[in-house]
């Protein structure tokens, strides 16, 4: 698979429409309320990796109607002839904002005797609705945010999110909350696991490299209770569904956020005769292009950020605490957003688990962006890099570049490859001749780090077998062709 992104790089530089590479996944700084943080007794900061990979989503992940129909077919959404059903195209909308009143008069809390009588009458009277007007959809002013492909077949539903490949399936014949007592109890963890595993195998979704193993789910029961309204005493209870959660990991680190787990529930048919998957939800995007050697904050640095409300990613957390927030645990993870967010990156985060000192049962998790922001360099440089130093013939190679110009310059950027045959080959056409990329760079221009090559080098361009290779990059003055910073070299070997 060949994927060369040099056109992007080339166009960026030569057109001079250059913007500094923006940071990924950061949120605006938010002060975390009036809270004070403290470290719990016995808490120790975990060890921190020097650097981590930051993943983006492959273009191969793009979800289109054809793909959605193929998936739907595997889920059993077929027409009478066995052909694929056409989806209903729907959208998630950013709804128009309603401005509530900015003033309010004190409303009375007590009522007259007549009003009390009116209330009592109102309580006892039934009423009938007028006919429903025709729905107005989408609402005026609604803004299309993303496309959803939905399929329906009887009581089965499938929704595929074009934006982030998230799939939701349900079979409402088995999503029952009111069953005969004891029917659900017969659904053991093992049986539920067997049904869930068979379901996964049957729908045969394209694998993604961060899929869980499906061998060790977390089990939980959905239990229905009848309770006394005054005392809360439980009068009756029964299990109606089993939930199985398959947690994802990436490079042995947990994945948090909506993409962090595959969620399955197994339910019982109304009469209790059989079991089947009642709901299923999974994010399916394929990851690639790790930005290699990305520096991360240490957990103690991240804790300082937490105290200041910096880099707070899950800032929609709706908690309230009466006391201080006591940190009891911290760990490194990748954050995979879903909701209606793009989920185009997996952001490295430090997760801090905290509790309210006044009520330790009140726990919450804070995700702090662990990716260290690049400090502005103070002198001109260029850096070229590869993702590894040694490749087998089957390996894909990723090559990236970063450069900075401290003052406005008319420059020549040259990227070349030195091959075992003794020749220098010029990017982007891999000819054994000098090919300069000319650009007028503004002062303070900072590009990357950004990957611009991602392919299997064997048989491509200048690669002609195993041996020792070296990429190099140079920035030169356009008028004199003198170097304006040191040459950057990235050496690597390909298996003989």
């Amino acid at each position, binding site marked *: 698979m060949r994927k060369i992104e040099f056109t992007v790089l080339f166009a960026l530089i030569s057109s001079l429409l250059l913007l500094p590479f923006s940071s990924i996944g950061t949120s605006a700084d938010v002060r975390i*309320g009036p809270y004070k943080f403290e470290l719990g007794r016995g808490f120790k900061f975990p060890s921190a990796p020097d650097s981590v990979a930051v993943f983006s989503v492959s273009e191969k992940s793009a979800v289109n109607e054809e793909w959605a129909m193929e998936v739907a077919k595997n889920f059993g959404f077929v027409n009478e002839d066995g052909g694929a059903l056409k989806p209903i195209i729907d959208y998630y909308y950013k709804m128009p904002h309603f401005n509530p009143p900015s003033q309010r008069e004190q409303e009375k809390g007590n009522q007259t005797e007549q009003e009390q009588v009116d209330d009592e009458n109102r309580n006892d009277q039934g009423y009938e609705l007028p006919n429903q007007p025709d729905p107005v959809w989408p609402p005026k002013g609604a803004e299309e945010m993303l496309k959803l492909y939905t399929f329906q077949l009887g009581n089965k539903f499938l929704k595929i999110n074009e934006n982030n490949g998230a799939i939701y399936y349900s079979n409402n014949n088995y999503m029952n909350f009111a069953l005969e007592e004891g029917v659900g109890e017969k659904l053991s963890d093992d049986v539920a696991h067997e049904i869930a595993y068979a379901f996964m195998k049957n729908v045969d979704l394209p694998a993604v490299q961060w899929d869980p193993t499906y061998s060790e789910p977390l089990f939980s029961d959905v239990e229905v209770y009848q309770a006394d309204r005054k005392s809360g005493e439980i009068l009756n209870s029964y299990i109606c569904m089993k939930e199985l959660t398959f947690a994802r990991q990436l490079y042995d680190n947990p994945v948090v956020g909506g993409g962090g787990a595959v969620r399955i529930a197994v339910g019982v048919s109304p009469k209790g005769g059989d079991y089947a998957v009642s709901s299923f939800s999974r994010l399916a995007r394929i990851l690639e292009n790790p930005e290699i050697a990305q520096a991360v904050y240490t957990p103690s640095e991240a804790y300082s950020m937490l105290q200041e409300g910096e880099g707070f990613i899950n800032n929609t957390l709706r908690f309230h605490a009466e006391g201080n927030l006591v940190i009891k645990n911290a760990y490194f993870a990748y954050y995979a957003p879903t909701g209606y967010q793009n989920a185009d990156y997996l952001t490295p985060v430090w997760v801090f688990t905290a509790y309210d000192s006044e009520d330790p049962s009140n726990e919450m998790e804070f995700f702090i962006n662990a990716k260290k922001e690049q400090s502005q360099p103070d002198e001109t440089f260029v850096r070229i890099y590869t993702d590894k130093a040694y490749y087998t013939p089957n390996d894909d190679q990723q090559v990236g570049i970063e450069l900075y110009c401290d003052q406005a310059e008319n420059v020549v950027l040259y990227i070349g490859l030195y091959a075992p045959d003794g020749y220098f080959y010029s990017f982007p056409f891999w000819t054994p001749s000098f090919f300069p990329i000319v650009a007028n760079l503004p002062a303070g221009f900072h590009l990357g780090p950004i990957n611009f090559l991602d392919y299997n080098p064997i048989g491509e361009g200048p690669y002609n077998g195993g041996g020792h290779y070296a990429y190099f990059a140079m920035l030169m003055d356009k008028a004199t062709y003198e170097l304006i910073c040191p040459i950057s070299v990235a050496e690597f070997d390909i298996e003989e």
Partner: protein
Amino acid sequence: MLKYSLFALLSSLTFLIFLIPLNAEIPEYSCTWINEFDTASDLPDCDDDTDTTIAWLASRGYDRRFVWSDHLVWEIDFDIYNSGYEGLDEADFHIHSGHGGVGYILLADGDKVYGSDVYDNWDWDSEWVFIYTCLTLSDHSSWAGALKTGTHALFGFVTTCQGTYGALPDGFFRRAIDWGWTPVQAYYGATRDNSCYPGNATAIFITDTLNQWYNDHMWYNDLGRSTANDEYSDDSTYWYATWNTY
């Protein structure tokens, strides 16, 4: 005797014929949202939840009863007096979006509304109440005490939860209205859908009767499915389920 009964029956029918048109009511919604807090961190997205709610319900013909925000959300909006202005009990659907704590809704100025403040008070027009806050319904027995006769369902979270910029209410209404699911199925489905609720939490759904649990549907759902009856008379019990969103 027979004559008298026939007369009474005819009188009743005549009365009903006139009564029904007089009492024809369009379903209503009400919303409260708080993004700015004096005693907690501000939130970025509670207005998105109510904007989504307004868009869905208004598009299906619901009328607006009230929408209050930030410091103009008061305790009386949750029907703490059960007389005069009764807040959420005057509308068929209510959503409150903001911060909560163990057993309470946090108001912008730091005041709190507990379940005990509204005990026995929801007995008029309220059918469905969505409290989209952390931890409020961890004391569900107290809050379920509000469901006297009129309210069919109360739902939210028993643990901390995350805002979704409107995605969770959207997921709920898509199922409850567009797909005609029962409210408990709609809420369960939305909280278990990665695209609607990405966080790790424990959700809860409460109904007043088992019939409401099993057979209820929102007014004006697109499939025209019928709404379950109000509880009458009050049997002093409630039904609930909790589940993990992860």
